[in-house]
């Protein structure tokens, strides 16, 4: 049973007590009224009997009409009283019955006495009459006393009965009140005991859970509000426990992540160290390359200059001593020497391209191509070329390097369309990938076999004999080197005798360039 219900019931107990006491008082009041009525009857009877005796004494002393009338009135009254009265109690009823039986005797005896003193009294013998009168009087006295005795006994009985009845009521009421009080106390004590037991269990449980024993469960509570509270505490402890478990898992996770981070940091440090080492190696290699290039630049050309110079001196000073073949040999020596000089120069240029710092910005390819074409046209006025340059082509790149790219591509196109009477060179923007800008240089010259396309961009690689088309074979290698440095792509499409098209695609933002911001 719920505590609230119990307390509500316990609250009804005083009300019940009040009702019980009220009922007891009511019963006691009603009984008292009944006893009072009975006592009144007894008192009336004894009063009437006393009046009757007084009247009979008065009449005996003075047998007049008035005492007679008085007596008759009293006897009537007594008759009425005993006829009206009734008693449940057998003893009382017996007394009443005795009185009822005697009262008519009193009336008849008094009537006989009155008759003795009546108008016919003179006819009787005085002594006789005296004797009759005495006899009647004695009988009346006996009967009266009998009634009085009966009435007194009845009154005593009634009185006794009243006392007994009131005592019974008192006892009954007291017992009832005591019983209800005892029951109330019992119920309240039971409630308090159960509540305190539950509270104790709850307190111990809360303390255990509160101090960290999350596996603790509160058991044995009744199914009341405190039981519910215990269940709630148990659920809370369960959730705390699972939370603690997941917290533990989280902490493990954090620890392992931290370890992983440390590992990553360590690896990164190692990586940085290796990068630094590689960078140093690269820088050392670059320095070596630079020293090499410097040395080549100074020392490799001097002997060539000697060969060419003395060859020239020989021709000039001793040309007369040589026949034509000898002179031709000398010329060949000088040509070869000068070619080697150009090779060295181109090689140095190529190596310089990889070392020079890049500064990227927007570059007007159309403008560069136009100037290049003009220079070529001026250098070779005999070679008429129809040059078509789309205006407004721009890319993002180093302007100096882009000049080299455009010059080399146009120079190539010019050179390889040299044998064509309707030579045509086209520079247009090209469709390239997203995030790229590109252009193409197309000529209608001799083209080349695509089977050798992979050799096209190699340094000192040539697809034509130098007698046919002069050059060192560094131009396209240079172009590719520059485009690569910009993170771009260069490729070609061609067919023999059908011209060639060179494509250049450059990213709109050059990776690793510090001046990218300018590139727009």
């Amino acid at each position, binding site marked *: 049973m719920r505590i609230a219900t119990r307390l509500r019931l316990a609250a009804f107990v005083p009300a019940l007590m009040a009702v019980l006491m009220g009922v007891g008082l009511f019963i006691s009041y009603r009984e008292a009224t009944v006893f009072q009525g009975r006592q009144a009857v007894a008192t009336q009877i004894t009063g009437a009997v006393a009046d009757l005796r007084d009247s009979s004494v008065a009449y005996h002393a003075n047998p007049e009409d008035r005492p007679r009338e008085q007596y008759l009135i009293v006897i009537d009254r007594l008759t009425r009283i005993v006829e009206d009265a009734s008693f449940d109690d057998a003893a009382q009823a017996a007394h009443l019955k005795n009185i009822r039986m005697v009262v008519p005797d009193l009336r008849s005896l008094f009537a006989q006495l009155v008759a003795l003193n009546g108008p016919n009294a003179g006819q009787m013998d005085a002594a006789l009459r005296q004797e009759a009168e005495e006899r009647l009087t004695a009988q009346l006295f006996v009967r009266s006393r009998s009634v009085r005795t009966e009435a007194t006994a009845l009154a005593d009985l009634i009185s006794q009965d009243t006392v007994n009845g009131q005592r019974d009521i008192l006892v009954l009421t007291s017992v009832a009140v005591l019983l209800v009080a005892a029951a109330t106390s019992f119920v309240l004590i039971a409630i308090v005991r159960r509540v305190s037991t539950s509270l104790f269990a709850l307190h111990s449980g809360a303390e255990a859970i509160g101090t960290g024993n999350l596996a603790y469960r509160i058991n044995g509570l009744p199914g009341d509000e405190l039981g519910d509270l215990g269940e709630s505490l148990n659920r809370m402890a369960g959730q705390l426990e699972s939370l603690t478990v997941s917290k533990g898992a989280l902490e493990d996770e954090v620890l392992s992540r931290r370890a992983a981070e440390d590992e990553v940091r360590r690896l990164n440090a190692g990586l940085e160290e290796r990068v630094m080492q590689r960078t140093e190696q690269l820088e050392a290699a670059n320095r070596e390359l630079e020293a090499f290039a410097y040395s080549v630049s*100074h020392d490799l050309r001097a002997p060539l*200059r*000697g060969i060419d*110079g*003395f060859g020239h*001196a020989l021709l000039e000073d001793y040309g007369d001593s040589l026949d034509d073949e000898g002179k031709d040999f000398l010329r060949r020596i000088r040509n070869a*020497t*000068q070619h080697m000089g150009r090779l060295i120069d181109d090689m140095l240029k190529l190596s310089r391209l990889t070392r020079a710092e890049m500064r990227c910005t927007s570059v007007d390819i159309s403008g560069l191509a136009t100037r290049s074409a003009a220079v070529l046209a001026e250098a070779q006025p005999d070679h008429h070329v129809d040059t078509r340059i789309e205006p407004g082509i721009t890319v993002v790149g180093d302007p100096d390097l882009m000049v080299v790219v455009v010059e080399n591509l146009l120079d190539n196109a010019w050179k390889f369309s040299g044998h064509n009477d309707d030579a045509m060179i086209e520079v247009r923007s090209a469709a390239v990938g997203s995030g790229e800008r590109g252009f193409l240089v197309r000529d209608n010259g001799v083209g080349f076999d695509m089977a050798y396309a992979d050799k096209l961009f190699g340094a000192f690689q040539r697809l034509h004999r130098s007698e046919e088309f002069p050059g060192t074979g560094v131009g396209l290698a240079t172009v590719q080197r520059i485009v690569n440095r910009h993170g771009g792509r260069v490729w070609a499409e061609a067919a023999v005798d059908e011209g060639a098209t060179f494509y250049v695609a450059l990213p709109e933002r050059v990776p690793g360039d510090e001046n990218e911001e300018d590139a727009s």
Partner: protein
Amino acid sequence: MSAAEERKILLVEDNADDEALTIRALKRNNIANAIDVVRDGAEALDYMFCRGAWSQRDPGVLPQVVLLDLKLPKVGGLEVLRAIRDDERLRLMPVVILTSSTEEQDIVKSYGLGANSYIRKPVDFDQFSEAVKTLGLYWLVLNETPPK
């Protein structure tokens, strides 16, 4: 002192072939000025400051122009140039760098140290001769040297 003595050319050149070719190119282009040749940087400094083998030289006579190679034994051409420019007496003397390389660093350093000109020796002798002719014409004929 003859006019040729007055208008000397100093050639600082370690390569005998280059020396011969330079002199040939000068002669070929009718540049008749006297030519003193020194073959390394140290000797060039001796010449400038009239020391060692050149102790008998008149310090009051300065070359009309110095043709200075950069890559020299003992003391490099740039060091010689620095010494010339650091010296009160020599600092206005015209110095033409005549060398093989067109390395950017060489050109920048040379001008930085006060070179008056920088000429690269071409492999092709015809071009070389043309270059020598032009520089001779310029520095020995057209150019007015600073007053003594």
